[in-house]
């Protein structure tokens, strides 16, 4: 799918991210833990998980209320610490304040990327995670960014900002 890269440079500023930075960040990721995963098929976190799953990512739902059940065919865990395998990225669907300890936990467990949803930003936690060698994206939706960078967002009439004279894969 995407060319694998070992390590993306940290974002220069967390107000804007270059397309290259976001592409290389997603390219290093196969397994995504989603903290705040809803079992309700009509909630935003479910939309994001379903989309990312369709794009070939393995999603790992994390939600203490749903622990032991499955969402989109994947077992749900009560916390990041209970996931019995490594994850590449931790996607945070919680408030900015709650994002702090979740990001710290992601670093302890060896994730490569912490991604905070659109509307979620915690600069202190970001600094700690980056100091620990993680790549951090804040206040962005991975579904919007993936679909923006790879053409599908344009189908809804959105301004992707992507201009290319290269033929995309059908």
């Amino acid at each position: 799918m995407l060319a694998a890269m070992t390590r993306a440079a940290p974002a220069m500023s967390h107000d804007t991210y270059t397309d290259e930075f976001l592409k290389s960040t997603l390219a290093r990721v196969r397994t995504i833990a989603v903290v705040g995963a809803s079992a309700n098929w009509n909630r935003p976190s479910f939309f994001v998980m379903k989309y990312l799953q369709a794009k070939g990512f393995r999603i790992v739902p994390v939600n203490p209320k749903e622990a032991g059940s499955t969402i989109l065919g994947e077992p749900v865990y009560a916390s990041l610490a209970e996931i019995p395998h490594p994850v590449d990225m931790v996607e945070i669907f919680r408030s900015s304040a709650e994002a702090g300890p979740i990001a710290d936990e992601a670093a302890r467990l060896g994730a490569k990327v912490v991604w905070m949803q659109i509307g979620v930003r915690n600069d202190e936690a970001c600094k700690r995670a980056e100091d620990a060698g993680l790549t951090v994206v804040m206040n962005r939706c991975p579904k919007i960014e993936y679909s923006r960078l790879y053409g599908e967002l344009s189908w809804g009439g959105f301004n992707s900002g992507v201009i290319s004279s290269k033929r995309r894969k059908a």
Partner: protein
Amino acid sequence: MADKQFGFETRSLHAGAAPDPATGARSVPIYQTTSFVFDDVDHAASLFNLQRPGFIYSRLTNPTVSVLEERIAALEGGIGATATSSGHAAQILALFPLMAPGLEVVASSKLYGGSINQMKHSYKKFGWNAVFADPDDPASFKKAVTDKTRAIFVESLANPGGIVIDLEPIARIAKDAGVPLIVDNTLATPWLCRPFEWGADMVVHSTTKYLSGNGSSVGGVVVDSGKFDWFKAKAKYPSMTAPAPEYHGLTFAETFGPLGYTVYGHAVGLRDLGPCQSPMNAWITLQGIETLAIRMERHCQNAQRVAEHLAKHKQVAWVSYAGLKDSPYFKNYRKYMPRGAGAVLTFGVKGGYEAGVKVVESVELFSHLANIGDTRSLIIHPASTTHRQLTPEQLVAAGAGPDVIRLCIGIETIDDILADLDQALAKAGAGAAPAKAAE
């Protein structure tokens, strides 16, 4: 949204239009189809539930039309756009997520006559009330705002009075009132003015005019900045902030964040009202947009020359064009659209109504018709045509009094444009006494 901002001309040619994934076609393919097949039942469900982007039916979205939408959103600096069958449809669609029976839109009293008509009469059938304010007096918008106001609506450059509105204070009034400012940017085009840079929340266009550019296709578009904070005024905008029963309780501004207004425009606005743009018209409009910058540059150069020529002409009583130094709108033009004052101007012929009619009937190069934004030069007498539904008071308020002739300057050779006006003015002068030769 993206990191790198390409230049205006580059976006005019490329935004939204990578080579076709299926065939490699470089020009945008015309997807002249009503419907699109689903991969399987789950794919269909995901599309109907708005869980993933994709095409279902061309009333909602179409791949050719979505190129047009992205192209115009990119030119305006917006987050997304919804194309419509006409500029009038765009106005309805822009207000549809905001309004409900008993609510109000505060609009400029000097809008295009057709827009005044739509708002004053047809909106009443939806229970929407249009309240008018004076575009020359931003404070009048503040006075007109009530707790029922859900939007402020103005034109950046108004036809036919040549009014360049002072957008910045009106955007502040809208922000303080917690309602979106919608700007009709048809006459200016994003090449001359980008209302989002001055605080507007949405932009509408009749793409029929300069965007299409050659007078061949009717269309419209609603562009969203993605910046309006719906949840700040949660109770005011239930279409955006309350669960939508037909989408199983999904909330547009929550699920789609800054994309919500444009998703609503397609998934509810176009779905239920139905004024989609056809793929063919979208394609023709895209061909026009490719040359928008160089056309507008020449349109404005030619219009400036015509305005200066007429201002010195013995048979001309007055000229209204923001590009003339004595225009009351010269200052706003320099601030909001310094690349040019547009290509529409009005003037009054000495000899009044009859001389005016004679000019309109004597031109050979100018076309006498009710449109603007054509590559060809156009002429009309607004009081007897485009604005004839207005009352005498409204006619004067809209800058369309009985002596007014409106010109829309094309991109023909400037000497031919000036010569045609001179010969028509000479004929009009010959009918009056005493005859006066053109300068």
